[in-house]
């Protein structure tokens, strides 16, 4: 499709502006003016709408397609949240109003949203307080790691520089810990997909700052030793970080704070139904127990005795400003609407159905794809396409075959410890019929992989483009029109 820069013609406009009602300003000195106007599009509004509408039609999305992208929790995003976020009383609210004199009074509605969303999330996670400020999941990880660093600094633990991270972890875990100044040491998984306790014990020591554990883990499994793991880390003087990317599996069923974790992030764009937006905006609130409350980033929303809300900035031991303001408010607002809709009786239904849907797929597909573990999975099931790969059909090929069947592929090649991984996460919002259609598609694909492996190399056939030359893209980068 032609780029927007190749459409329209010189002089064409796509918007109207108010007529000037004040005299023109004195000209900016020539030395400060740009030489040529920015070469931005010159199209009518209709041309713009048509271009972007057609671009949208070249995407898969949850509203149109089953999207079992493992670990990403592509559940349904209720559209009324979009309407709420666009209310002028929220969308038009300047973030600096609370910093004016008695300014908190000007934004009581917005502060209530943040505070109440925080309160519900703290309760679900089993933590004392939650900061809503982190702007994405990985940003939450970084914030959590900075809290751990601040704790050790405050306690004079200058030698605690090592963050232990299991080999099954998301790449963001080691990357976030590194940005917080930690040295990373990997902990092995055992044959059952759990943390290898012997390896963990061997690696704990006086240099341990903490452990980052994804719970449930990236294999879609709940580590039954999680309480013991937390106790071991605590006994060694470290803190326990829970990566809550997979919180959807246990919401309303398990509170990570009760398991011994000290700090945890959740992704509002996973568990709490806010849209992924094609790669953000996300939001990664971080819950902490009493040990870490003093270090939370500023500002902190406090509820006063009279029921009004205030922003607290004077927190002596706070790590400071991780975000410009109070977090991705528009995202928090959508999550708050979701929390209010579900209510206390709804949360457990989310985790029950997420786990049931994943196990239903696991049981039905186990005869066709390799499933390594002798137990139930949680919210997602990680198969290996090793059997198909021996026949020349790799996980990538299976993914492309699914696209031709109108299904977004699962996450592939992650976690790294499973060869030819197919990480399938149906989420709780999908119906049994949709799961059956998916299962049928996967069975047909397995049969085709036996019968005609060569056919796969041309898939997908139904998309606007076929497989793209990624090597060329990286070797000869073409990044601007």
């Amino acid at each position, binding site marked *: 499709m032609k780029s927007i820069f190749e459409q329209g013609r010189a*002089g064409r406009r796509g918007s109207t*502006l*108010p007529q*000037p009602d*004040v005299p023109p*300003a004195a000209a*900016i000195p020539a030395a*400060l*003016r740009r*030489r040529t106007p*920015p*070469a*931005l599009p010159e199209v009518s509004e209709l041309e713009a709408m048509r271009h972007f509408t057609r671009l949208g039609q*070249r*995407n898969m*999305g949850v509203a149109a397609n089953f*999207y079992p992208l493992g670990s990403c929790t592509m559940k349904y*995003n*209720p*559209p009324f949240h979009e309407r*709420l976020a666009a209310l002028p*009383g929220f969308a038009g*609210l*300047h*973030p600096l109003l609370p910093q*004016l*004199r*008695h300014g908190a009074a000007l*934004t009581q*509605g917005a502060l209530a949203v943040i505070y109440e969303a925080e309160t519900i999330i703290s309760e679900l996670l089993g933590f004392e307080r939650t900061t809503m400020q982190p702007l*994405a999941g*990985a*940003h939450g990880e970084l914030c959590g790691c*900075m809290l751990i660093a601040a704790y050790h600094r405050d306690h004079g633990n200058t030698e605690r520089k090592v963050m232990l991270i299991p080999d099954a972890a*998301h*790449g963001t875990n080691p*990357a*976030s810990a590194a940005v917080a*100044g930690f040295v990373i040491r990997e902990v092995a998984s055992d044959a059952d997909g759990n943390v290898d306790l012997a390896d963990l014990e061997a690696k704990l020591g006086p240099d341990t700052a903490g452990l980052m554990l994804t719970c449930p883990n990236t294999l879609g499994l709940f580590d039954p030793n999680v309480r013991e793991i937390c106790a071991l880390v605590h006994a060694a003087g470290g803190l326990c970080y829970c990566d809550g990317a997979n919180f959807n599996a246990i919401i309303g069923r398990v509170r990570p704070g009760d398991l011994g974790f000290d700090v945890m992030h959740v992704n509002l764009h996973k568990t709490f139904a806010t*849209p*992924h*937006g*094609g790669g953000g*905006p996300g939001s990664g609130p971080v819950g902490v127990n009493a040990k870490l409350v003093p270090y939370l980033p500023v500002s902190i929303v406090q509820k006063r005795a009279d029921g009004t809300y205030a922003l607290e900035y004077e927190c002596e031991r706070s790590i400071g400003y991780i975000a*410009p303001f*109070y*977090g*991705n408010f528009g995202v928090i607002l959508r999550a*708050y609407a979701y929390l209010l809709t579900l*209510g206390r009786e709804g949360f457990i*239904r989310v985790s029950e159905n997420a786990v049931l*849907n994943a196990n239903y797929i696991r049981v039905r597909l186990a005869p066709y794809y390799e499933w390594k573990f002798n137990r139930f999975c949680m919210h997602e099931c990680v198969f290996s396409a090793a059997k198909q790969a021996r026949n020349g059909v790799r996980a990538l090929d299976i993914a492309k075959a699914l696209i031709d069947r109108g299904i977004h592929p699962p996450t592939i090649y992650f976690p790294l410890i499973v060869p030819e991984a197919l990480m399938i996460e149906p989420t*709780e919002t999908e119906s049994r019929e949709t799961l059956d259609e998916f299962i049928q598609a996967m069975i047909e694909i397995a049969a085709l992989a036996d019968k005609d492996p060569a056919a796969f190399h041309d898939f997908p056939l139904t*998309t*606007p483009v076929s*497989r*793209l030359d990624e090597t060329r*893209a990286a070797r000869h980068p*073409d*990044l601007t029109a």
Partner: protein
Amino acid sequence: MPYIANTDADRREMLRAVGCDSFEQLWTGAGVDLPYPMLENLPRGLSEFEVTRRLEQLASRNHTHLVNFVGLGYYDHLIPAAVGEITRRSEFYTAYTPYQPEASQGTLQAIYEYQSAMSRLTGMPVANASLYDGGTALFEAMMMAVRITRKRRAVISGAVSPIFRKMIQCYSRNLDIELVEVPADGVTSATERLLAAVDERTACVLVQYPNVFGTIEDWTSLVAEVHARKALAICSVYPLALAVLKTPGEMDFDIVTGEGQSLGIPLSFGGPYLGIMAVKQEHMRRMPGRICGRTVDREGREGFVLTLQAREQHIRREHAMSNICSNESLCALSALVYLTCVGRQGLIDVAELCLAKAAFARQELVRIDGVEPVGVGPFFNEFVIRLPGDASEIAGHMIDKGFAVGFPLGRYYPDRKDQLLVAVTEKRTREEIKAMANALEAVL
């Protein structure tokens, strides 16, 4: 149950299919052998109607009716309805990061066009797919300079947003970075002192354009001097102003970042916003974040993919350029649709309206007895005035009159308690500006 399709009958049958009689058994089979938590403190579920009513009530408690002259990097600009219409299309907002390019050409082409628009606006050859916000983008730029130069000292102007400076201080704390702040001089950066602070150990100099006081400064000679000292020059921009201003590319900056909120993104009480980053060609492979590239498919048709992924956390883990994963894709789409609809001439017109209205407002304000201009330099749409008293107190009185009159600088600059930073956008009318000036005169 909200948003759950399976009925109790479905659930029973599915439990049987997986070999369980009950959910208890399912949980136990998955290794979850823990007591159920008590969630009695949580509220009961509400209907869509009730949730809407509650949030409409909360929205009505926010004082968005105030006539707004507060800026400090976040501005009340016009947003064509087409922007929201596109970003609320489910094909965009319910999609994930485009890991499967054949199923995501819409998002990918939009990112590519966004990168192109940022490149054209900033005058820099390449841009990434977005970062979280202007502050985190500036921090990422500093760390990029640290990686490129292998030096760990950064010099930052006191005329950079105090919010960004606080964020960079926060992030630098664990990283063995020496951060040197050079206080501003009036409403300008103290260029001589900035340069004097650049030594052979310095990785980069960070400035803002226009600066936090609204002043437009020509950085051309500073950039050359910084380069002569083997350091990189980094500029945080107000992208809308670049419609008319000399570009960072023309001034030879190495890395350009910015807060993209002014490009079609609502104020929304602090986010989601848009972190912009654009760099010189030679630094392309050191840039953090997603990058989209144009390539071809097997039939030679043009298509788009995420590229240069060897920089990223899912490949490099702790050695990645950054830990960023999700960025602000939908906000980048807003910026692209905004720039498309407003267009080449429209963006210049918006900038000219901002310039004219800000100049008019300043003229109306300094006419008041006791109100003085601070500084003489050219400014874009924001300027500083000195009030005959505590600016915070006076701004407080102006709220009672219906105006958010500006930002009292004393909050971040203790020696500027009598200074007010006033921002004016194309949305403010002559009448609103005059009424604000009259109200201020009455308050003083």
